[in-house]
């Protein structure tokens, strides 16, 4: 098959190039870099969510659970034994996958779906939070701090950088990984199965889609990516606490999936870019006086999109593009498509 240069790939390539040189422009400003890192973190989580929530149509609210598991595996092994997060983050991700199997197998086996699946996955985050607060040896009520390192080599091997720029690139790599996984799944049998079952589960099952297997595969992939991000997240934060099992954050991840445009691979990415930057900017500008105002704007955007544009930010951008496209193709006399 000949490779086609679609507008989407052009925009994505430009975006990627911008993302690559961004720290060179803002690298000196730690706050801006942290903001960009945050955007990437949420974009990665949202892109991972797209596999189970967007393509698979399962409204998952358990991102916090896998994020927390990743954080605790990496954090605890670093604090106790000085193990390198570069290795343990994969261990954490695998344990997150194990957890997703433990949760997903029975839930999907007993056909827990739609709102009940959403609630069960939300409950999982809360259960883990309480369990880790009660488990004094690892979690407990007080936070634990990750060790500091003072020479460049240990900083690198223990992923405890003194600048946010390396974290930025790590998360950028993860975002690209999550995106490619999305694109790949979309083109395989699993992707078609997920799309089919997200429309009408029983009908898909009748047509020969292995509903349970597809859902569990999607959930495992999602848990793996989120677990990886959790391992990096704990190194960025520098402390370890049961509040990593964050129900609000889990909801936010799902919101990004919806606001971006359900099932659209680049949707969560756009949503994270838009929503997280708005949130952080408002928080920085109004923080002191008007606590909570950013949440009002967040809420209004979410409600407006859900009511008026269920295809999300990606859909809005696409229709804007379609409106200006005729002008572009007129100027080129359609030569772009011939080339």
């Amino acid at each position: 098959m000949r490779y086609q240069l679609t507008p989407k790939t052009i925009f994505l390539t430009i975006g990627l190039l911008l993302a690559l040189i961004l720290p060179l422009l803002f690298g000196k400003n730690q706050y801006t870099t942290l903001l960009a890192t945050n955007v990437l973190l949420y974009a990665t989580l949202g892109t991972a969510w797209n596999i189970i929530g967007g393509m698979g149509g399962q409204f998952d609210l358990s991102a916090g659970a896998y994020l927390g598991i990743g954080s605790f595996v990496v954090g605890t092994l670093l604090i106790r034994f000085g193990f390198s997060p570069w290795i343990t983050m994969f261990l954490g991700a695998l344990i997150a996958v194990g957890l997703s199997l433990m949760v997903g197998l029975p839930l999907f086996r007993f056909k827990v779906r739609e709102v009940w699946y959403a609630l069960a996955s939300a409950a999982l985050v809360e259960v883990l939070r309480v369990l880790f607060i009660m488990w004094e040896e690892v979690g407990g009520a007080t936070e634990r701090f990750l060790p500091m390192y003072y020479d460049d080599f240990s900083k690198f091997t223990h992923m405890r950088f003194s600048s946010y720029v390396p974290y930025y690139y790590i998360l950028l790599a993860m975002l690209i990984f999550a995106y490619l996984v999305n694109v790949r799944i979309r083109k395989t049998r699993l992707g078609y199965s997920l799309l089919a079952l997200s429309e009408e589960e029983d009908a898909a099952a009748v047509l020969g889609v292995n509903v349970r297997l597809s859902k569990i595969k999607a959930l495992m992939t999602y848990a793996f990516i989120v677990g990886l991000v959790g391992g990096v997240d704990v190194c960025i934060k520098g402390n370890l606490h049961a509040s990593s099992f964050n129900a609000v954050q889990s909801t936010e991840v799902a919101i990004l999936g919806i606001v971006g445009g359900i099932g659209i691979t680049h949707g969560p990415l756009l949503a994270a870019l838009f929503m997280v930057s708005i949130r952080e900017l408002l928080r920085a500008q109004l923080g002191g006086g008007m606590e909570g105002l950013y949440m009002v704007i967040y809420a209004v955007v979410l409600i407006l999109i859900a009511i008026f544009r269920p295809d999300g930010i990606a859909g809005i951008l696409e229709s804007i593009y379609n409106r200006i496209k005729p002008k572009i193709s007129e100027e080129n006399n359609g030569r772009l498509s011939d080339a």
Partner: protein
Amino acid sequence: MENLAQNIINGLMMGGIYALIVLGLSIIFGVMNVVNFAHGDFVMLSMYGTFLVATWLNWDAIATPLITFPVMFLVGVITYYILIQPTLREKYVMQIAVTVGLQYLFRALTQIAFKASPRALNFSIIQGNIEIGGLTILSSRLISFAVSLLVIFAVYIFLSKSWAGKAIRAASDDLDVASLVGVNYHRTYAITFGLGTGLTAVAGGLLMTFQQVGPLMGMSFGLLSWVVLAMAGLGSTSGVLISGLIVGVAESLAIAYWDPRARLLVVYMLFILVLWIKPRGLFGRK
């Protein structure tokens, strides 16, 4: 043994209020099939409403539903027309999105209005306790429990006897047929949603007699109500009552015999158990 009885009684008292909260959610989900993730935040809003009315008019918390019930009913009706109606024919995901947005909105607005510090009222007139055979019953809890039962019974009578109630039940059975025989379903749905949120006003008034309120309380109430509803199944008022009591007792026993922090753990374990064993709930009609 006495200790056990005491804890069970405490749990039952709390469970009555839970049942009242869940009844509202049950009506909304059961009749309209609308997934309302903001129900817990309606409870939170009602509690703040109770706080405002009680401090402005110098009323006792237990009397405030006289004002907050109509207000919350209206809030529910407005919410229905602006937010819920456009998503009625959409997938459940969009309803979750809209109600989660509402949740954020309520949380943010109360945070702006009241800051993050929790609010509580002066002692209610129903404060005090009753001793029966070595058991202590807080009279505020007892009266709250009694009021909850009364209101649940009143709603049951309303649904089964009044014309509006019959319309609501007809709409829940078969919307198209109900429309054919002259049920205006938009109005019925608006009333249903209003009733569901109005009931949280009563619960809010009762809760404020012995509890404080903070902007983030909605989330735990929300999840808890869905847990009770999962257990109760749809279309059964007595099921809601019994499930509310079960969850209340389970919570109270967890606090007493395991660990105070394990309260939610036990509730969610019950939830998962119910989803596995009886996905339609213990008392479900459909």
